[in-house]
Every structure is written in structure tokens, then in C-alpha cells.
């Protein structure tokens, strides 16, 4: 059995979404918060909800408007046999073409399929029907039959780990064992009563006082005996009182991760009837190694699992064809458009797993830019509570990859920007899609030059200090000489950090020296961070209009006001 197609209309944050040709296996919905991932899972849970009680209200209608009904339509390939038999839903049997995935209303030689529609209008009366194109009317499908599809939500609540009515554990327990439980509980109740009776005599004086007045009021016969007893009948000691224990501790008291793993274990038993599992935020409560193991287990099951995740670990475990991206605020009409193409994206997903979970991506030419972006964001968040960093900088490893990655993320619906130098003619940004933001240095500038060209004497000294720290005085002296500083007084002043000796700050030469190919001063994440700190400090760098403009552009894009984000 497989869910083949899903169409959601006017449900919570989703106005309309259609997902066709849904494959088998584990499928992860990814994207930043509030992008509708959980709503897709909830829609599936509602569609296969096994009981009549359903807690949906006005807030579950898109935009809170109840004029038009919530509608969830799902098509299931290879549904459980008993449901498509004669005198069941055979009149509504549809087919799916194995090659194209198209739905055929009257099947010839196709995969058998059924389509179910959930609807709830302003009367808040939910209806579930099996439908097809050839019949004007659908036919109702009962909760019991919806349950037969075996679409189960992994909730891992306490009730899921007890033998109460309708619990997953109850489902997987055979009838004989259940009867036995019943009699064991009856005996246990009896024993508990007997055992407590002696100890509860401590309450005797109170009981006697009550009994005396009660007799006066003729509530009780003279001579009737009042006592305090444990009220341990089967009502208080039901099968719901029996819960799964590990090492004598109830599993429901364990962490969410453990509870979730045990819940998956219960639904994995053949007799649970579970086919499709729904798991919201799979990684919650689990360390990376347990997440990894769980994903591998679910993969090996070979059945459909719909999950949402914010975990790079989960992403790295899955093939790109198993990922579906959802974007906030721009929920697409079709999830299919977002299926990642394996050949193009498998590498980047493994490499940039974190980026796939962000909403904005800064494609950085080098590590300097990565560090620079991180530091700019950190500074801004620290100084301005209204700002929120939404950017994930990624290292494109060289300018030749910048355009490719930025285009890829843009196509996937991410907001992308390129952060790069402007000191070579090689990097041509013209092929970039117009929606990609360009955060490029001024003409003829590398990022070091963009900052240090306007360095004050102190700024020059600071920068040289970074170089010396990394490569030693001799190397840096040589670099500065090559960059055109021949005056030993100036060189000494720079290398000893005595900025007072500098009549004029040799900022351009220092900038050139810093980006030396062989021994660069800032070509690391830490270097980039230092460079960003220097740039933001007026004592070190003169805040020229050009620099201010560059920095603000970077700040605004990487860490917009929180309410804009």
C-alpha cells in the first residue's frame, strides 16, 4: 500500500497544495518553521482518522474562513484487499498507471487504487467518503475501515504505551492474552484490597466519629460496621493501568526519544496493521546516532514513512529524492515541483545539510566570507534585539562554484545571495537569476581591500597583528615590502604595533599584503570573523559611505528585522 496522491485545500496554513506521484519509502518534508510541513502530516492523519471524534475547529480553516470547506483528498495505490472487494468499495475502484503515475478512473490493467475525501464545512460535521470521477456521489467510509489502511501517527504519548482501549499496544495483543490480563487484574484488585485493609485501620477513629453521627441520623443500622477500605475494583484498575516498563520503570516516563522509538517498535509488529507511518519532527529527543539508526531502520522497512525534520543528520541519511522542500509564506501549489533531482543535488545536500534547513543562504566564495557573514550577524543580533539572523553561509570553495550553487538554491525556492570579491575578472555573475541577491565588493576589491583600504593607523596595525600572529614577523615584513612599503620606519611601526609612528596609514598596501596568495591573513572562518570586527570599528576603519553601504546591505539581508523574517 502506498499513498500516491494528496490534495489539501483550505486546511490550516495551506490554501491549496497538490502532491502527485508520491513514491514509496521514507519521505522527509523539510524547510524552516511554519512552512506547512506539519500541516501536511496532520492532513494525512485527519484523512485516515479512525474515529468519529475529531477535534477540528474554526482555527483549522485557512484564514479562519469557514465559507468554503476544508478538503483533503488522498489516493491510495494497492489498498488493503478487503476494501476493494465486491460489495465493498469495488464500484469506486480506480487505477494508477505504473509507468506514468496517472490516475485512471476506470482501471483496465493498472495498479488498483482508491480515493478518499475528507470534508468539513461550516457545520463542523466531518465526512469521509470514497470517491471517483464516474459517480456523482461518494460513499461514506467508516472509521473502522479507514483504520484498515494502516496509516498511523507516531505520537509517543503516555496512552500509546499503555494497554488502554484503542491503544496501539492493545491492537497488537491477541485476544487470549487480553482475557488473561482481565482476570489477572481482577485478582490484583482483590489482593490489593485485602492487603490495604489492615493498614487502613489507622483511619479508625475518624471513621468511628462519622459512623456515630451517621447512626444518630439513622443513615446506618445500629451495629453496622464502618471502615475505610481501598476502592480497588476493575474500574480503578483497568487495562489502561497496565503500561510498558523497562527495567521496572514505565517507558512513558522515559524521554521523548525513547518513547518514540518504542512506539515505532509497536507499530512495526506485523499484527499492528500499520503500513504508512507519520512522524512529526523525527529527531526530537534523540541523539544524532539514535536518529541515524532510526532513519536507517525506517528505510529498511520498505514502507512509506512521512516525516518532518529539522535535523541535518536526517538529511544526510536520506537520498535527495526522498526530500520535499516546503517554503514559508510561499506554499507552492505543488509539492512535486520541489522534488530534488538526485544527480544534481545529492552532493550539496550531504555537504550543506544545514543550509537546506535554513530560509536564506549566503553562497560565500571563501572561508573569509563565511566568517565575515557569521560575525556581522552575531554583532547585529547582540546590538539590536529586533534583528534575527536567518542566513546560513555556505562555503562554495572557490569563485567558480558560486554561480552554480546560488542558482541551485534559488531554483529550489530559497532566498540566495552571493558573497564574493570583485578583484578578478574571472568571476562572471551575469548568469545569475535576477532573484539572487549580489553582495559583492566594490570594483577591484577583495573583501580584505573592501575593509582595509579605509583602515586607520590603528586599523593597519591591527591587521598586521593578525598576519604576524599567523605567519610571523619576517613573512609579514616581506609581504608588506612586496606590497610597496619600503620605508623601514613604517614597517617597524606596523610590526611593533606603534601606530603613533605612522604619519599616514598605509592602508592600501596593508590590504594588498593581507591577501597574499601563499600566506593570507584572513582566509579562514576565524579570519573572516576578525575582519568583520575590524570593519565595524570606527577607530580601526574610517566608515566611508562606500563601506557603510556594503556593510548595511550585508546586515539587512543576513539579519533582517525579526518581523520581516
Amino acid at each position: 500500500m502506498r499513498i500516491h496522491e494528496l490534495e489539501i485545500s483550505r486546511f490550516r496554513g495551506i490554501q491549496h497544495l497538490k502532491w502527485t506521484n508520491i513514491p514509496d519509502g521514507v519521505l522527509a518534508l523539510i524547510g524552516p518553521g511554519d512552512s506547512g510541513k506539519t500541516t501536511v502530516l496532520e492532513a494525512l492523519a485527519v484523512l485516515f482518522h479512525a474515529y468519529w471524534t475529531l477535534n477540528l475547529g474554526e482555527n483549522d480553516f485557512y484564514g479562519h474562513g469557514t465559507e468554503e470547506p476544508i478538503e483533503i483528498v488522498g489516493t491510495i495505490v494497492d489498498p488493503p484487499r478487503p476494501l476493494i472487494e465486491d460489495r465493498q468499495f469495488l464500484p469506486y475502484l480506480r487505477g494508477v498507471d505504473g509507468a506514468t503515475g496517472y490516475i485512471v478512473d476506470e482501471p483496465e490493467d493498472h495498479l488498483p487504487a482508491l480515493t478518499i475525501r475528507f470534508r468539513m464545512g461550516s457545520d463542523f460535521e466531518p465526512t469521509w467518503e470514497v470517491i471517483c470521477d464516474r459517480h456523482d456521489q461518494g460513499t461514506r467510509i467508516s472509521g473502522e475501515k479507514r483504520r484498515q489502511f494502516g496509516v498511523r501517527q507516531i505520537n509517543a504519548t503516555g496512552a500509546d504505551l499503555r494497554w488502554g482501549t484503542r491503544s496501539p499496544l492493545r491492537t497488537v495483543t491477541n485476544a487470549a492474552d487480553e482475557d488473561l490480563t482481565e482476570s489477572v487484574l481482577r485478582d490484583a484488585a482483590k489482593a490489593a484490597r485485602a492487603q490495604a485493609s489492615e493498614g487502613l485501620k489507622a483511619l479508625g477513629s475518624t471513621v468511628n466519629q462519622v459512623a456515630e453521627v451517621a447512626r444518630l441520623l439513622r443513615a446506618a443500622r445500629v451495629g453496622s460496621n464502618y471502615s475505610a477500605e481501598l476502592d480497588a475494583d476493575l474500574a480503578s484498575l483497568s487495562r489502561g493501568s497496565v503500561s510498558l516498563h523497562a527495567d521496572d520503570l514505565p517507558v512513558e516516563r522515559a524521554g521523548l526519544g525513547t518513547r518514540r522509538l518504542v512506539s515505532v517498535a509497536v507499530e512495526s509488529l506485523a499484527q499492528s496493521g500499520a503500513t504508512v507511518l507519520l512522524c512529526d519532527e523525527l529527531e526530537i529527543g534523540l541523539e544524532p546516532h539514535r536518529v541515524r539508526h532510526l532513519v536507517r531502520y525506517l528505510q529498511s522497512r520498505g514502507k512509506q514513512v512521512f516525516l518532518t525534520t529539522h535535523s541535518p543528520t536526517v538529511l544526510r541519511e536520506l537520498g535527495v529524492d526522498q526530500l520535499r522542500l516546503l517554503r514559508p509564506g510561499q506554499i507552492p501549489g505543488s509539492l512535486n515541483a520541489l522534488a530534488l533531482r538526485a544527480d544534481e543535488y545529492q552532493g550539496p545536500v550531504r555537504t550543506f545539510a544545514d543550509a537546506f534547513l535554513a530560509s536564506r543562504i549566503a553562497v560565500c566564495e571563501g572561508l573569509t566570507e563565511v566568517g565575515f557573514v557569521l560575525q556581522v550577524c552575531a554583532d547585529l543580533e547582540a546590538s539590536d534585539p529586533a534583528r534575527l539572523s536567518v542566513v546560513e553561509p555556505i562555503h562554495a570553495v572557490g569563485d567558480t562554484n558560486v554561480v552554480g550553487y546560488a542558482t541551485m538554491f534559488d531554483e529550489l525556492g530559497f532566498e540566495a545571495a552571493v558573497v564574493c570579491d570583485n578583484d578578478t575578472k574571472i568571476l562572471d555573475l551575469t548568469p545569475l537569476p535576477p532573484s539572487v541577491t549580489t553582495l559583492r565588493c566594490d570594483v577591484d576589491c577583495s573583501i580584505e581591500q573592501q575593509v582595509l583600504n579605509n583602515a586607520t593607523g590603528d586599523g593597519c596595525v591591527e591587521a598586521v597583528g593578525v598576519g604576524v600572529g599567523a605567519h610571523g614577523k619576517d613573512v609579514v615584513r616581506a609581504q608588506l615590502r612586496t606590497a610597496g612599503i619600503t620605508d623601514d620606519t613604517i614597517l617597524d611601526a606596523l610590526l611593533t604595533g606603534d601606530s603613533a609612528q605612522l604619519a599616514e596609514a598605509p592602508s592600501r598596501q596593508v590590504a594588498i599584503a593581507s591577501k597574499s596568495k601563499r600566506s593570507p591573513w584572513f582566509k579562514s572562518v576565524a579570519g573572516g570573523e576578525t575582519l568583520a570586527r575590524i570593519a565595524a570599528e570606527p577607530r580601526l576603519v574610517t566608515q566611508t559611505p562606500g563601506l557603510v553601504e556594503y556593510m548595511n546591505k550585508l546586515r539587512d539581508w543576513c539579519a533582517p528585522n525579526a518581523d520581516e523574517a
Partner: protein
Amino acid sequence: MLTKPEIDLTEIGTGSVTAPAGHGKTEVIAASVAAHPKLRFLVLTHTNAGVASLRDRIARYGATGYAHVETISALALRLVRAFPVGIGWIESKNKIDYAAAIAGAAAVVGRPTVLSAFASTYDHLVVDEYQDCTRSHHAFIGHIARCIPTVVLGDPLQAIFSIDRADPLVPWGEVIKAYPSQGELSTPHRWTATNPVLGSWLQSIRDPLRTGVHPIRTDTNVVTHVRLDRPASQGGLYRLLSPGTSTVIIVGNSAKNAVIPKIAQMHAKLGVSVHETAQQNEVVSLCDALAEPVNAATRLGATTDFLAGSASGVKATAGFDTVMRNVKKSGSVGRSATPFALAVRKFMDQPIPAVLNNVIQCVLDAPGCRIYRGEQLAIVRKSLITASDWTDLPEAARQFIDQAGHVRHLRARPLEVGSTLRVKGLEYDQVILLDPSEVPSAEHLYVALTRARHRIILATVPDQGLGKWFTG
């Protein structure tokens, strides 16, 4: 109660069993179903009466849940309604084209996906009365039989249903090619308690009839030849009949159906009635006519004509001729004050269905009136009472006809007259076969004769002999 079936049909796999009349075919099916509580059976037959009888017998074993029993037509209709588009199934509101439904259903189950879902519902298919299957029935069943072990039961000597010339019955030779013969039921159970001699005589005539080596000798005390002094349509059967006995009069030539109501009418005083079929074509055409936008006089005329064909002595009702003549001429009743005239006047004043029923009641209450087609009359009257408007009438009638068809069991009433086609499957103590020389085929003859539990009378008119089938 649980007896081992004479033949366990599930052991056959796919094949056929020849089942002569009265040899316990229904019993074999029911016992086979009851013997396998874990298997799901689909049991198909041709008529609602057959369905009712099979369900009855299976219920007596307490095995109702193991088998789904349905007519082939009903199953076909469900299938074409389920998948109407590909086969272009358009259903008219008034009349269902069952031949088209069977052909359409064959196409529907010919689709692998549908067939596979359908077939997974059942472990065994049993088709009863297979000799009545046409070529298109045979094709339809054939598709299902590819996926489900299928046993067909029937008797080529009872193959008389051939309504549609374009779709003839499938020859038994072809049946056994698809469903290899697994034997023949051999005990004439029906006659062990009534007349074993008749039972073995009926068994003995099978071979001559099958091979065409007749005439058959009638020198046995179970078959009597009676020469009538005048044709049955002129009351010739009077001395042969006594009221209340279980007797069926079968007309030799089933093509001469028109004679059947005449015979009933002539012998109505003895309580002879027409054996009615479930289709009730005359009811349908009357109700269709009444639903037309015509005046009250026309409706009255159509209804009294129908009445005259359902009961004897209608036109002898006091004031009948005068009133009808006046109404036809001037649209008013005239001065007559008979109960009939009063009823008609009320109807002319208030021409609605329910008031027309009062007119019918008035005629039936008249002394000397005897109903011989009670079922069709009852359906018309129920429809008139139910319908709020003339246009509702056909739909109401159809519902009552369907109901009657479903509740109808194999039920023979005393003293009925019918054709072989109509009384097939029923049993009477005595069979009076009229004009045996005119019986068109060995199959018709076998069906007619096997309706008898105790004895058979071959009745001929003066200038007629026993003909090719029998010798004295």
C-alpha cells in the same frame, strides 16, 4: 441437519455437474456451502425465485454467512453501474436492458484490475441452472471462472429459456468444454416420498428424449391419456378439475400464450388462475398508459380493460355497459345509480389514482366477479393507493413489482394454468399437459412432465392424437 453433500462441489475445482429435475441440486449446493465455513461462496442463478430458494436452503443449514446468492443479471447490473464509462452504459429510468448489462459486465470483468479485486472476494463460484445461460452469460461467467474455481450445475434437458434470438442459449457441448463434466446426480429425491414409480419413469425418459429415440411408452399407471370433448379454452377441463387440488395446466404450445388467460377465465369458477411471471408486463403498460396526460374517461377505459383481463365477470357488474358507454360518449356517467355508477361519478369529479382504486374495488365486490390474476391486480391497486400523482404511478408500480419478485418463493398455488416457461421450477401434485403433440421440443416436454409430484394427465382434443412424443 448437517449432512455430507452428495457431491462436494469444492472438490471439483472447475467443472460441471448435470442435475436432472428433482435430483437435489439445490440441496447439493447448500450442503457444499455449509460444509466449508471458512470459504466464501458466490452462488449465481437466473431468477429471483431461484435466489430465494437457494438462500432458504442455505439458511436451513445455518450457513447464510458463507455464501452470497444473487441473480446473474443483478450482479451484472451492479458491475455495469460500478464501471459505466468505458462500456458506455446509460441506464434508462424506465427499462433496464439486461442483455446489454450482461455484455457490459463481461467487458468489465474482462479488465484484469477489476477481475482481480472482484475475484479476491470469493473462494468458489457456483452457477445454478446453467442450461439457461445464453452465450453472453457464458462469456461473462467465463471471465470470472479464470480466477475463481467454478462449478456450474444444470440440465441440458431443461434448456428452454430462449427469449432473445440474438443471444441464444449456449449449447451444453460448449459448456462441458469449459467446465469438464464431473458426473450426474442420480437419485430422484423429489419423488421418494410422493411417487417413486413416477420418479423412475421420469428418469427413464431422459435418454430417449436426449437421443431423440421416441415415442415414449405411456403404459404406466402414473401417466393417463384423457380425450377432452371440447378445447380447454372452451371449458373442456371442467370434469378433470376439482377446486383446491394442486394441479397445473400446461399448454403444449408455449407460443400460444394468448390461450392461457382464456383457459383461466373459462374455469375461474373452479378457482383456476394464471400463473404470473415476475415481469408483470401488463401492469407496466397499464401504469405507463395512465401516466400519459389523458382525460379521466380514457384512464377509466384502460383500467376496466385491464380489470377484465384479470378477473372474470367484470362486464357483468350492474350498470357497467351503460356507464362505460355514457362516459365514452359524453364524459359523464348519466343517471344510473348503481354502486358502479356512483364510484365512477366520484372518479370523474375527482380524477386521482386513489379514487380510481375505489372503482376497481366496486367491480371486485360485485357478485359473480372472480379474480384469476390476483398478483398483477394487487400491484396495480397498491400503486394507485401509493401514487400521489398519475406521473408517479409507473415508478410506484415498478417498486411493487420488484418487491413481489424478491419476496416470491417457489410457490405453486392450487389450480394454475401456464406455459412451460412460466412454471419451470415449480411443483404440483398433478400436471395436465394440453395438446402434447404440440410441445415444441424435448426440453419443453421434460420440463412440463417433471412438474408433477404424483401423476400426469395428457389431455387431447377430439381431432388430435398423442403425436410424435408418446405412444399409448
